[in-house]
């Protein structure tokens, strides 16, 4: 009897904790969603956590009142940056990770050590000087500057993809070599098909990054019309709280969905990629 009560208490406590945890994590998100449906925009005018009245007003003004806050333009800017940097980043990272994983060449170890050391510098350092240089060369305010920076610094994060490529047995490449494929053909016909889960992962992560990065766009984009969503939302104050919530919810929903899809895809991708023979 005693053991059973102990067990029941244990289960009760466990579930209580779980509910508390779930509540803590859910709560701010819920608040934002509620606020986005508030009919009044001002933070002060919302009594506590629950708006007085609900409406779609915030969402409508988000897209129509573009005088001060041009949300649709921000969306477009961010979309352009995300798509372009996704394409370039994926190509560069996959190529880099594959080459470093598969080939033994003289510069390999120095390159890997160099990448490690380079990554230890606070990313701020390069951003400041890039800002200064871009100002001198009148390249500020340019979306392509951002795309270039995202894409060109992406290869530094090659370790995850390299780890994946390390799991492909060398004998497959040797067989292809004997079969007469040169390195380009091997990459095209063997590496890329096998690397599908990694390509999806890289593409998704490099696509979602520009949506959440606020530092670089804030530094490099001065013109309100060139802002990304992150910078734009940052500029909204307490009086525009509902609009902020609406704008935030609007981009957060697809990103969250993408993340859940990614988790599912990664799990299935990794198990089917288990190559044996």
């Amino acid at each position, binding site marked *: 009897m005693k053991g059973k009560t102990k067990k029941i208490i244990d289960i009760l406590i466990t579930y209580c904790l779980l509910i508390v945890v779930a509540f803590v994590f859910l709560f701010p998100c819920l608040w934002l969603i509620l606020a986005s449906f508030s009919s009044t925009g001002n933070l002060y005018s919302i009594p506590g956590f629950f708006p007085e009245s609900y409406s779609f007003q915030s969402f409508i003004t988000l897209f129509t009142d573009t005088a001060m806050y041009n949300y649709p333009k921000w969306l477009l800017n961010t979309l352009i940056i995300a798509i372009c940097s996704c394409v370039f980043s994926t190509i560069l990272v996959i190529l880099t990770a594959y080459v470093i994983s598969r080939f033994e060449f003289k510069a390999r170890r120095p390159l890997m050590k160099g990448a490690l050391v380079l990554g230890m510098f606070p990313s701020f350092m390069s951003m400041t000087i890039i800002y200064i240089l871009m100002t001198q060369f009148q390249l500020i305010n340019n979306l392509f500057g951002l795309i270039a920076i995202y894409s060109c610094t992406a290869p530094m994060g090659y370790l995850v993809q390299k780890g994946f490529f390390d799991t492909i047995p060398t004998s497959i490449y040797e067989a292809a070599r004997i079969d*007469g494929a040169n390195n380009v053909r091997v990459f095209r016909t063997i590496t890329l098909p*096998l690397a599908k889960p990694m390509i999806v992962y890289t593409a998704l992560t490099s696509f979602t990054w520009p949506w959440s990065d606020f530092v670089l766009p804030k530094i490099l984009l001065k013109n309100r019309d060139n802002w990304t969503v992150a910078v734009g939302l940052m500029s909204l104050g307490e009086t525009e709280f509902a609009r902020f919530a609406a704008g935030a919810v609007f981009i957060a929903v697809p990103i969250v969905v993408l993340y859940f899809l990614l988790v599912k895809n990664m799990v299935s991708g990794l198990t089917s990629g288990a190559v044996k*023979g």
Partner: protein
Amino acid sequence: MARIRLENVTKVYKGGVRAVSDASLEIHDKEFIVFVGPSGCGKSTTLRMIAGLEEITSGNIFIGDTYVNDLEPKDRNIAMVFQNYALYPHMSVYENMAYSLRCQKAKKEVIEEKVHKAAAILGIENLLKRTPRELSGGQRQRVALGRAIVREPSAFLFDEPLSNLDAKLRVAMRAEISKLHQDIQTTFVYVTHDQTEAMTMGDRIVVMKDGLIQQVDTPMNLYDHPGNIFVATFLGSPQMNIFEGTIVKKRRGKALCLHRRIGRHRHPRGGTMPA
């Protein structure tokens, strides 16, 4: 003409490890030659140097009459069967076998004909549409063989192909590979650590240890006239008995006086035996 000639072939890895030392050998055309020895003796390394997958530190290798040291594997006209099959997991059996022909940009009809011919020899025609994941170990091994046959090479290289199979299958595949050799009449260079395989399959056997070729001869000659103690104890099951002894002079010729047996079991003091 697919003789293979090795002249003083040596392989030294970075850090000074001598994998193969001064190997010289003449492999005859259409011969089934087996490299056998314990782990780390250099047999796989030698095979890979013939294939072109390892750089040769010094020495020469000739396939036919061509000096192949600097040639890429694909230019040496050889085919290789790997221990873990090395099939392309995302391609069907047909595509696996057709891959080398596609690299040569062969015509579709030619590919079809060659693949079906090879599949017929191995009895895997009904598996052409499957992917490697859907095949058993033995079937995968046959596909690997088929991939090699399609290339119509002047020499087949086998790197311990049967090590991953269960015992019964191994015996069956041994017979199949021997039969294959009879049918297609091409040079087979086979590496294994299993001396039974070596003894039953090879025309000649190359025994290696610590990177050095110990002896090259037919199975029966190696069995009856081993050149050194290593070869003597390595081949033959159960293992040959080794005795330490001295040749003494007797009134009528010589005799062999046995002192003690080398090995696990203690034997009561030996006597004298006529030499």
